[in-house]
C-alpha cells in the first residue's frame, strides 16, 4: 500500500547540504502498524513530512520515491496531491496546541477539511464532525470550543479525530503522545489501537519512546543519523536486537520484571550530519566495533527476517560482496 524507496532529504545550508534522511526504504501493508524510533535529530520527523510531501524550504526531497496507492507522490503538484490528502492519507502532529489553528474553533477546522473534499451540506458536516469526535471519546459539545479551551489530552484526541474524518487508508503520526503525561499517553495509545482495529487503517508512528510503541506496533524501524539501522518485526527486535544501537536502546529502558540492573546509556552524541563520514556513522558510540567500521560504510543486509545495517552481519550474508569505498 505504501512503498518508500531510497528516499533522501537534503537541507540546503549554503555550505555542504545536510542529508537529514539518507536513502531510506520501507513498506507498509494495509492495516499495519509500523513504528519508527530513534533519538532526536535522527531524521524521523523529517522522514514523515517528506512522505506526506509537507516539507518546506530549505528541506527538499532530492532522491527516491514514495509510492502510495500506486502513485509516486514525490514531484506531484499540490493539486494532484489534494485528491489523496486527508481522504486516503492523513497526518497527526506532535503538539495539538501548535497544530490546531488558534483562532478557529474545532468545528471550523473539521469543516475546512470536509468542505475541501466535497462535502457541502452543513448537516452532513456537523454530523460527521460529531461522529468522529465520539469515536475518540470526546463529547461533541466541544466542537464550538477553541483549541486553547481544551485540555491537552482532549486536544490530541480532537486532532486524531480530525485525521479520521474520511477514514483514510494510512495515518501518519508524529509523536502524538509526547506532550501528554504517562497515564494519558497509554490511554491514547490504547484508543488509537482500538480505532485501528475498528476502521482498518495503517499507521506509521514516529516516536523516541521505544517502550511505548513496543506494545502496539507490528513492525519496528530503528533510525540513526538519517539512515535505517534496523527494520523488522517488533517482537523480534525486542527479543533479539541485531544492531548495537537497537541493543543499546533496549538496555537503556528498565524492565518492570526481573532483577534490578544498573541502567546503561549509549555514550556520546549523534554525529554532525554536515560532515560527510566514511565508514559507519555509529562508530564512535559502538561497543562492538570492528576495524573495517572506520572505513567501510555498512549496507542494509537481511538477517533472520529483519534487515540490519551493520558490518557485524555483512560477512554472514552469502553472496554479499564486502562494501568498499565511501558511502554515497
Amino acid at each position, binding site marked *: 500500500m505504501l512503498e518508500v524507496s531510497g528516499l533522501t532529504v537534503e537541507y540546503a545550508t549554503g555550505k555542504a547540504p545536510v542529508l537529514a534522511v539518507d536513502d531510506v526504504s520501507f513498506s507498509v501493508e494495509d492495516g499495519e502498524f509500523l513504528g519508527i524510533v530513534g533519538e532526536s535529530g535522527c531524521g524521523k520527523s523529517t522522514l514523515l*513530512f517528506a512522505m*506526506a510531501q*509537507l516539507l*518546506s*524550504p530549505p528541506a527538499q526531497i532530492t532522491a527516491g520515491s514514495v509510492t502510495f496507492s500506486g502513485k509516486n507522490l514525490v514531484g506531484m503538484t*499540490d493539486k494532484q*496531491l*489534494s*485528491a*489523496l*490528502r*486527508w*481522504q486516503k492519507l*492523513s*497526518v497527526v*502532529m*506532535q*503538539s495539538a496546541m*501548535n*497544530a*490546531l*489553528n*488558534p*483562532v*478557529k*474553533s474545532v468545528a471550523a477546522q473539521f469543516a*475546512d*477539511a470536509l468542505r*475541501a*473534499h466535497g462535502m457541502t451540506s452543513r448537516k452532513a458536516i456537523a454530523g460527521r464532525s460529531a461522529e468522529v469526535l465520539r469515536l475518540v471519546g470526546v463529547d461533541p459539545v466541544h466542537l464550538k470550543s*477553541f483549541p*486553547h*479551551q481544551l485540555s491537552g489530552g482532549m486536544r490530541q484526541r480532537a486532532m486524531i479525530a480530525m485525521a479520521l474524518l474520511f477514514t483514510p487508508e494510512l495515518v501518519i503520526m508524529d509523536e502524538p503522545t509526547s506532550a501528554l503525561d504517562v497515564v494519558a499517553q497509554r490511554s491514547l495509545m490504547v484508543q488509537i489501537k482500538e480505532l485501528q482495529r475498528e476502521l482498518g487503517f495503517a499507521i506509521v508512528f514516529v516516536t523516541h519512546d521505544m517502550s511505548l510503541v513496543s506494545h502496539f506496533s507490528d513492525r519496528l524501524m530503528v533510525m540513526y543519523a538519517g539512515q535505517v539501522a534496523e527494520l523488522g518485526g517488533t517482537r523480534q527486535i525486542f527479543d533479539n536486537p541485531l544492531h548495537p544501537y537497537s541493543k543499546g536502546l533496549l538496555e537503556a529502558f528498565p524492565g518492570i520484571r526481573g532483577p534490578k540492573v544498573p541502567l546503561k546509556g549509549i555514550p556520546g552524541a549523534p554525529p554532525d550530519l554536515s560532515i560527510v563520514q566514511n565508514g559507519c556513522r555509529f562508530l564512535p558510540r559502538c561497543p562492538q566495533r570492528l576495524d573495517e567500521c572506520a572505513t567501510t560504510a555498512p549496507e542494509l543486509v537481511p538477517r533472520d527476517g529483519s534487515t540490519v545495517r551493520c558490518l557485524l552481519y555483512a560477512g554472514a550474508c552469502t553472496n554479499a560482496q564486502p562494501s568498499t569505498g565511501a558511502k554515497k
Partner: protein
Amino acid sequence: MRFVLRRAGFFLLTLWAAVTLNFFLPRMMPGNPAVAMVAKFRGRVTGQELASLETLFGVNSGQSLPVQYVHYIGDIATGNFGTSLFYFPSPVIDVVRGAVFWTLGLFGVATILAFILGTGVGIVAAWRRGGLVDSIAPPVLVITSAIPYFWVGMMFILIFGLKLQWLPWSGGADLTATPGWNPAYVGSVLEHAVLPGLALLITAIGTWTLTMRNNMVTTLAEDYVRMARAKGLKSTRIMLDYAARNAILPNLTGFAMSLGFVVGGAILIEYVFNYPGVGYMLLQAVENEDYPLMQALFLLITVAVLVAILLADIATAIFDPRTRSSE
C-alpha cells in the same frame, strides 16, 4: 468584555495625561509664555474673556496651582476650550470643527487604505517567498519608509503639480468654487485630495507591508499551517484563513502604535500642500502663538489616536479568541 473595559480605562488615563501635559507645559517653559500671552491681550478683551484666558493659563495669581488645575479640567470636560486668540473672538471649538472634516476625510481614508494595501502586499510577499513581490518590495519599502513625509510631498508638487501640471497642489479645494455638494466643488475637492493623499499613502504603506511580511514569514513556519497543507486545503484558503489571520494580530496592535507617526506625517503633508486640515491649523496656531487653539488641537489629535487604538483593540478581541478568555 473585561478586555475592552481595561482598554477604555487606559484610554481615559492617557487622555488625562495629555490634558495635564497641556496644563503644565506652558508653565514649565522658559520665558513663561502664559504670562506674556495674557499680558498681550489685557487691554483688548472683555473681562469675561480675560478670565477664561487666565484660567486657561492659570495666570490668575489669586488662585493656587491645584485650584487652577481643577478649574482647567472642569473646563475641558465641559468642552470649554476657550477662545481662539487669532480667530478672535470665535471659540476654539468652532474653529476646529471645519478642519476636522478635511483631515478625517482625506487622511482617515488614506491611512486605512495604506493599512489594507500594505497588509495585502505583505501577505503576498511572504506567501511567495523569493518571488517577484518578495524580492522587490522589502528593499524598496525599507528605503521609502526612511524618506521624510514632507519631502515626498514636495517631490509630488514638483513633478505632478509644477512640471506636469496634472493636479493642483495647494489648498483643499478651488477657492473660487462655492462650497457645497455641487459637482464642481466636489470634483475640485477630489482633485485637490489626490496628491496629498498619495503622498501619505506612499510613505505610510512601507511599515505595514514590512511588519506584515515578517509576521507572515514567522506564521508560515507554524505547525498549523503545515497541518492545513496536509489536509489538502486550497492555497488561497491556507494563506488567508490560517496564515494571515494569525499573522495580522500583532500587526493590529502595531497599527495603533504607528498611528502616532502617521499623524505626524499627515501634519507635515498638510503643511506642504496648504491643505486646510487639523495639522495645518496646528502649525498656523503655533506661528500665530494662538495657544488655546494649539492646545485644543493637540488634545483632539490625541483623542483621535486613542480612538483608533481602541478600535484596533476591539478588532483584536474579535479576531483572536484567546484574548477573550484570558485576564
